[in-house]
């Protein structure tokens, strides 16, 4: 069998990109990129995006996207903060945050699954609602929790959480129906339905898992910043999108959606941004470079659907 070298190169570009980015910036920053202090920065920066990306890749795998991520994170953090302020209980706050994240995930998923090809619409509407709630609460002033809760913001714990998330989602994505069926739905949802896959159920599960991931990220965001405002979580859904696209996730989903998309994409995007800041590149240039790369990757990853002729 002839080896398709071009396909090999294409498949390995995310791996090549992450190595190139790390090596390049390690060199130009005189090794500062790989110093312990900076590795801690990278872990803190990558934590929320990677955790949420590991959940959201199930949504992207079936060809949809979730625009509620930032608003949901903000609302989860808000609820957590209010509970801590009124009860002082971190455990209760965590439980409530997770409950809210999962609940919104289920609602979001049910709406998206019903809207089928226009699944982004309910996501967009929910995003406005969640942002509106946050802005309404933010109008009353920034909500703060005591500095002592900052002790829960621990890099070691974050590394452990990410490690567990990686193992769990790898298993779910590659070895269970949740991952396989979401990819199948992304390939062709009509054919998947006809094959007996409960499309509605697996789409809802994908959003639920994302909601759960967002809630965990919200908890750590809350204890790190210890202040919640109308801007909390702003733009996070786009950070997740950029990370997944950088990792080679096709916007159309399907079989080309791979586990490594979330992992490599997050690492590449974070190291790229971190490296450019360390190197002294101006903020606007960083945005420009990220924008150009993102555009190129979207072009490469877009695959026109062949569709199924209606009967």
């Amino acid at each position, binding site marked *: 069998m002839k080896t398709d070298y*071009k396909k090999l*190169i*294409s498949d390995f*570009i995310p791996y*090549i*990109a992450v190595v*190139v*980015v790390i090596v*390049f910036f390690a060199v130009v*920053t*005189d090794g*500062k990129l790989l*110093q312990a*202090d*900076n590795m801690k*920065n990278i872990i*803190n*920066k990558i934590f*929320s995006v990677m955790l949420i990306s590991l959940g959201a890749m199930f949504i992207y795998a079936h060809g949809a996207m979730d625009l509620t991520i930032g608003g949901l994170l903000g609302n989860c953090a808000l609820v957590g903060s209010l509970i801590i302020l009124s009860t002082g209980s971190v455990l209760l706050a965590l439980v409530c945050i997770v409950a809210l994240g999962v609940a919104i995930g289920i609602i979001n998923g049910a709406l998206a699954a019903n809207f089928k090809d226009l699944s982004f619409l309910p996501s967009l509407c929910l995003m406005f609602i969640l942002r509106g709630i946050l*802005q309404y609460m*933010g*109008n*009353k*002033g*920034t909500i*703060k929790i005591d*500095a002592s809760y*900052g002790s829960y913001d621990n890099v070691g714990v974050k590394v452990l959480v990410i490690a567990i998330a990686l193992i769990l989602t790898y298993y779910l994505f590659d070895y269970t129906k949740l991952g396989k069926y979401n990819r199948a739905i992304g390939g062709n949802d009509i054919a998947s339905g006809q094959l007996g896959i409960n499309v509605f159920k697996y789409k809802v599960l994908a959003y639920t898992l994302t909601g759960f991931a967002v809630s965990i990220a919200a908890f750590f*965001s809350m204890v*790190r*910043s*210890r*202040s*919640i*405002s*109308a*801007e*909390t*979580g*702003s*733009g996070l859904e786009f950070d997740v999108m950029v990370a997944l696209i950088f990792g080679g996730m096709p916007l159309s989903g399907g079989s080309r959606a791979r586990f490594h998309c979330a992992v490599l994409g997050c690492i590449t995007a974070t190291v790229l941004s*971190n490296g*450019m*800041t*360390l*190197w*002294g*590149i*101006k*903020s*606007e*240039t960083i945005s*420009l*470079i990220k924008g*150009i*790369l993102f555009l*190129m*990757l979207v*072009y*490469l990853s877009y695959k026109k659907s062949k569709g199924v002729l209606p009967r």
Partner: protein
Amino acid sequence: MRKTKKLTALMLLIALVMGVVSACGGGSTETEGAKADSETKNNTAAASSSEETTGEAEELKIAVVMYNWADDQGLYLQQCGAYLEENFPVKFEYITTGQDADEIINTIDELCTAGYDGIMNAMTAGFQSWAQICEDNGVYFSILLTTIDEDDEEFASGLEYFCGSAHRSDWTQLGRDYANQALEAGCFNILYAGFAEGMLKSNDQMIKGFKEVMDTRADVTYNVITQYPDNLFEAITTELAGGGYDCVVTSVSVMDFGVGNIYANDLVGTTSAIGHNVDETLDEAMEAGIVIYATDNLTSIMNMNYVMIANAVNGKELEGTPDGYWNIETPSVAIDSVETLSTYREYVRSTDEDNPTYAFNADEVRKFLTSENPDATFSEFESFIVETTLEKIVERHQ
């Protein structure tokens, strides 16, 4: 099509590297081996050098963090920064960040690792977290332009690397001044347009001060509208269309919304404007009689913060610097006529890019740098700043 995509994929690999290399030209500062040494990061004098020549002071590297550098405020602060760079061994990097606390904290984290000697931060969300990061990394920081809450002030009091704050904190009086100016001009149906409540402390205080004065006058009507920045211009348009207002008062930095609406709705001659902005459009608006009162509080901000951080890095603060949190009240320069504006342009902020002027010039900055004047005191510095009125500036520079 597939062939094109594969080719582009290969080119992407090259573009990823080449794009970064070509785009960064001139944007980075040179680093020396000593910068990568984590031990020297906490040694303020040695860690700050990016140029080190015999007999010359080491160049400070200061990051200035704000949400937007493209507006008038951002451009003016960069202009002040460029002036300082010409006269002192300092290099500023202007960093843009969002308003999300997490993003601000991550940005500060990266800047501390990148080896900056000081950080001036206008973004105070998550203050305690990022302030602690600066403290842990031995990076001096100051608060630029804005206020922090009382509990944050208390937190800052316990930090060794906090260099102080220099901004106007009493915006309520400015709100009262605006109201009084509108009434003195004979306006009796006044619109106040500001940001959504809770967005900015200065905005909330200005509205409060404005209402305090207005509520004492039963013969005058007023209306206060508040909106998020993206929607404020349209909100003013809608309100002006039906209101019959004779004056539009606007909150911090959005004078152009009021003036823009007056022009757009053909209200020149019937509606006047009061606000807080002194960009190039002010001259025409004032000559046309649209703007009757304008204020500016940016005149000394950048220079003051530079003094505070430079002295801290130098290891010698001004004598008598208070312990704990402190803020120097910066007054607003008021412009109430074409003649005043002309004086302002001559002595404070010229529109001539080739011949800029500064209220707090290099010689005056030198007086308060302990590296050049070890006997400078905090009370002298404070008096100097507090007296930054137009009359005093003219008196000093004539």
